């Protein structure tokens, strides 16, 4: 559904991504993993058109979207869920959600989807009239996911849904993302929480310094020793070993 071929991009003269190849099949859940400053967010921004593509091409749903404006890309059904801190704090929960449906003109369908989002996240219904700036971290994360759903996306891209959340809340958010994927929405999830992301995804890419280092099915990556070493706490164990010897 999403095909990224040899994409280079960055800010001004500073090149961040150096030849990314990535593929998300229709209906699948794919994870993009990596630490801070590895180019994860830049890749998302490049896909959604906020950062221009320098070289290479991005194809979504049979159409080339590289070079299109962000609002045109959203209209084609590829929706990015922003990081949780990027709700509109001075707007109410409901206003935020309605903003997600900005591209749609079927008001009946929008009403129905709003109802669906409220059923999905009952806490949002309770708090629909309050300013989203007063919500807790988990609630804001639900809000931005709900806002993404309001656009009736073919594919959702999630930017670190687990960031700065308590483990229990992370579990709840991820189970919700799983439910969303079951409804047929294709998902690309960008994460630092490798363990959770690999439980959810079928396939994963690990990015470092703007290039894809490792890719493979989630099962393979969980058992891969180098992934274990660098992401699943292996390094700590190894350091201990080397200290003891």
């Amino acid at each position, binding site marked *: 559904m999403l095909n990224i071929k040899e994409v280079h991009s960055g800010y001004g003269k500073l090149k961040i991504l150096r030849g990314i190849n990535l593929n998300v099949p229709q209906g699948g859940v794919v994870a993009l993993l990596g630490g801070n400053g590895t180019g994860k967010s830049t890749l998302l921004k490049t896909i959604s058109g906020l950062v221009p593509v320098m070289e290479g091409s991005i194809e979504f749903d049979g159409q080339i979207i590289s070079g299109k404006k962000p609002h045109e890309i959203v209209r084609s059904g590829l929706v990015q869920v922003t990081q949780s801190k990027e709700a509109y704090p001075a707007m109410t929960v409901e*206003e935020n959600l309605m903003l997600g449906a900005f591209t749609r003109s079927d008001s009946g369908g929008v009403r129905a989807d709003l109802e669906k989002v409220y059923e999905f996240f009952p806490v949002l219904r309770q708090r629909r009239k309050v300013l989203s700036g007063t919500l807790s971290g988990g609630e804001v994360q639900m809000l931005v996911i709900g806002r993404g759903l309001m656009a009736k996306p073919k594919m959702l891209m999630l930017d670190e849904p687990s960031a700065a959340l308590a483990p229990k809340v992370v579990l709840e958010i991820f189970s919700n993302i799983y439910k969303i994927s079951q409804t047929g929405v294709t998902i690309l999830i960008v994460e630092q929480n490798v363990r959770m992301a690999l439980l959810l995804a079928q396939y994963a890419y690990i990015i470092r310094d703007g290039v894809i280092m490792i890719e493979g099915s989630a099962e393979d990556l969980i058992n891969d020793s180098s992934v274990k070493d660098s992401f699943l706490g292996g390094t700590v164990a190894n350091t201990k070993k080397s200290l003891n010897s």
Partner: protein
Amino acid sequence: MDFDFGSLLAFIIFGVTIGVVYGIVALGISLIYSGLDIVHFAHGEIYMFGAFLGLVLSQQIGIPYPGAMIGAMVLAALLGMFIERVFYRRLTRSGGGYTVAGMGMIICGFGMSVALMNVAFLIWGADAEPFPVEFGIEPLEINDISIPPSYLLTAVVSLCLMGILNYFLRYTKIGLAVRAVAHNKDIAFLMGINVPLFISLIFGLACALAAAAGVLVGPMQSVQVEMGYLMLMKAFAAAVVGGFGSLPGALIGGILVGIFENLGAAYISASHKDIYAFLLLILVLMYRPAGLFGVVAKVKA
């Protein structure tokens, strides 16, 4: 001068009526500030153009006053969008993402102000033109002081415009999108909003408000090329007093500036009428730098 409660009341009423006009110009400056992150220093000239356009439409073409006002608002909005697209857009774009850091935009604004003033001078000349309008309403009498109908009308129309704007921003889909663009352009893009188009819209809206103010003030004073400068300064003071980016703040700030300068003119010295607005501005900046309704400077990541 003997203290007389009736005249005090009248001065306050005069202050409020001119104050709401400052308020709607301030609202435009505030809108542009939150939408484009620039202080638009040529806004006074848009106001002046609005007044002249209203004058031309009503006196020379013969459109009734309300129609002339709407016409002037539409034309000024088009003028504003043209200026924004052709001149400001290049600067904001080179600043990256429709925001500008630095002096370039301020200087461009001042330059635009001088350029517009001279264009108006070429078209209409330097003379003050009277803008007589028959409202067909009796002046309001309060304790022997009569308030001319143009003042009453001005206050009512300004408040209506603000009410409409408030409704538009709060309860319509387009208004919601305007607020989204004003707050954060990247997220607005991700919501599927055509941000460059909306920036033009915000600019046009602000210019329409300034033109309405021009057509309202025209009959009270007269219309001339240099009327914009003082209005810009007063409206700027109103926006700062109320808190930049706050809609009720712009209104209250405008009214405060209006009352303050009218009382100052009445009880201290009428020949220094224009000083009092800035006195208020300085006082507010000293004790409440964010303005009465402003939030402490928003920090952008």
